[in-house]
């Protein structure tokens, strides 16, 4: 199993939470102090480099118009890390293909960073969470179509090195497509994709050999998603590729109480406020889900999870914290409960968790936890597939 360090690069220095109605989309940017922002960007990039030196792989993502994530252009942070690190695999999870609306620019950026890093890029593509449609002004019910059309174009551009081609799709029209540079990796960097419930999309991802990742979901749900992925993968997947990834919040302390204090800082992320209209833009969720919402049975995935107690979140594997031995047990338990998985994506910094404690978290994990889980085998159904090659 590979372990990946991750932070959303938060800007927590806001007025008291009870004075804010939202931390996303319309939180006025007068609350952003560029001098503090400059310190934070540089600190967060330093922490990625410390994680690299400790032997972890690195993941970045992007969001827009939100205090929860200052990384508004993940290809930029990826490029900095490509130049400033030597060893880590670099995962961008991901490029919001539907919302950026220029798939070829993404193809170029990924190819360039793949060359700079000499082939360490893992290129993720995401539909984008609900509130992202506002900053991008994307029709919510068409984001899935836009995502897949964009992926088709990017893959074709990466793998075409001969005669340039034209593309006239539903959302993008381009002429004489001819990518300079090509990606360093052949045929292209591993592709990752995220999902939280859409089984047809999971099946499609498996058939293309993409790594499937899901974030902050209870183990019961993760098992269901991973099993759907593996079933499709056995039927249609490309041998050798693919895999599954899960993201919890992770804090490793010297003592139990220190770990709990660290985890409580990370929960800042789960408690981020969002006005209701940003949580469910019309058409983002399927009609059946909205019928449940009208009947009061569905209030949003993250909302449902954040309303639960820390104990519940821990039992479900959404948060993992404790002494190194306790965290090892939690990871192995989760691994067994979901039928195994390949990549542990760890949000190890959020909110006000400061530099010192973030670095301590990284070092304790790398030194005392990682050696005990690194050897967990790739998920069994994939081994079966590999054996059949």
């Amino acid at each position, binding site marked *: 199993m590979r372990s990946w360090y991750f932070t959303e690069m938060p800007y927590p220095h806001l007025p008291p939470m009870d004075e804010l*109605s939202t931390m996303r989309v*319309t939180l006025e940017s007068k609350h952003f102090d560029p001098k503090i922002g400059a310190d934070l960007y540089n600190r967060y990039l330093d922490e990625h480099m410390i994680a690299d030196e400790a032997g972890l792989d690195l993941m970045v993502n992007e969001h827009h118009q939100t205090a929860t994530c200052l990384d508004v252009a993940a290809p930029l942070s990826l490029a900095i890390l490509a130049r400033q690190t030597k060893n880590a695999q670099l995962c961008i999870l991901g490029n919001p293909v539907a919302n950026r609306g220029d798939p070829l620019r993404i193809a170029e950026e990924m190819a360039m960073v793949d060359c700079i890093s000499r082939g360490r890029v893992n290129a993720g593509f995401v539909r984008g969470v609900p509130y992202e449609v*506002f900053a991008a002004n*994307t029709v*919510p019910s*068409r984001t899935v179509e836009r995502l897949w059309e964009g992926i088709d174009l990017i893959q074709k551009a990466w793998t075409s090195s001969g005669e340039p081609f034209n593309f006239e799709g539903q959302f993008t029209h381009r002429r004489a497509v001819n990518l300079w540079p090509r990606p360093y990796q052949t045929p292209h960097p591993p592709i990752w994709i995220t999902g939280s419930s859409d089984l047809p999309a999971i099946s499609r991802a498996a058939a293309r050999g993409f790594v499937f990742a899901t974030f902050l979901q209870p183990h019961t749900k993760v098992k269901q998603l991973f099993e759907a992925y593996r079933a499709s993968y056995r039927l249609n997947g490309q041998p050798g590729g693919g895999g599954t990834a899960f993201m919890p919040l992770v804090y490793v302390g010297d003592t139990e109480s220190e770990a709990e204090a660290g985890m409580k800082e990370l929960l800042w992320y789960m408690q981020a406020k969002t006005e*209701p209209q940003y949580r469910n833009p019309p058409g983002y969720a399927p009609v059946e889900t909205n019928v449940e919402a009208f009947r009061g049975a569905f209030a949003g995935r993250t909302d449902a999870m954040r309303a639960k107690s820390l104990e519940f979140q821990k039992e479900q594997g959404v948060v993992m914290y404790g002494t190194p031995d306790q965290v090892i047990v939690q990871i192995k338990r989760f691994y067994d409960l979901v039928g195994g998985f390949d990549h542990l994506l760890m949000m190890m910094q959020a909110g006000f968790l400061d530099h010192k404690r973030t670095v301590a978290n990284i070092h304790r994990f790398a030194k005392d936890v990682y050696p005990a889980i690194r050897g967990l085998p790739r998920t069994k159904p994939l081994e079966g597939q590999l054996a059949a090659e």
Partner: protein
Amino acid sequence: MSASDYKTVQGAKLEIERLGQGAPLLLLLSEEEQLDMASPFVAGLAEKHSIIAPHYPGFGRSERPEWVSSPDDIAYMLLDLLDAEGLRNIPVVGLSLGGWIALEMAVKDRGVFSKIALVDPLGVKHGGPFERDIQDIWTSLPSKVSAWKWRDAEKSKRDFATMREELVSIHARNIESFARFCWDPYMHNPKLKRRLHRVTAPALVLWGENDGVVTTSYGRAYAEALPKAKFESVAEAAHYPQIEQPAATLARVAAFLG
């Protein structure tokens, strides 16, 4: 009660409601179509007219083909529907989104409508890029949106707990389809205003005085952009006068239709 049937238009099955007796009249419903149909306004119109009220693709029980992306597409479908029904030179009543669709049809075919009654229609932009012609109902707090749409928000309340599941599902799908067709450009067609000179049938532009989504000044500018339009308003009503003040709205529309 209305009867409904289905017609296939450009490959899509559309649900059509029919109600009343008399000369034919095309009723183009608002995005709140279920409340429109339940309103005494529609029952009143039906006393003198054979109403034909198509549910747009993605609304009611109508199919929504992937290629339909705007009121412009819907207008071509409804022109085909009227051709198939053998109807021309008939009056139309268009409510909000329906008013926009009525004008998209009228600019494409000068002879399709004899008279055009529009109630708080969407569809055009009068101001510049930084001017907010139409309030953004999708980035604003629900309480604020409700105050823009309704003078009396009680009129919008629905009991989803006891409503038949199929109707809740229609309501949810209507909201999705409205956003799908009107998200970008936001609730207008940038080309439409320049085409309005083609609308030579007499028009009534009727407005809820308390409309906060599109205000009466937007409505007056709309009337000025139409060659033969008069502007009138309905008191104590916001964006949906046909639901908030059905009698007053019906009186104005009936007087105009004659």
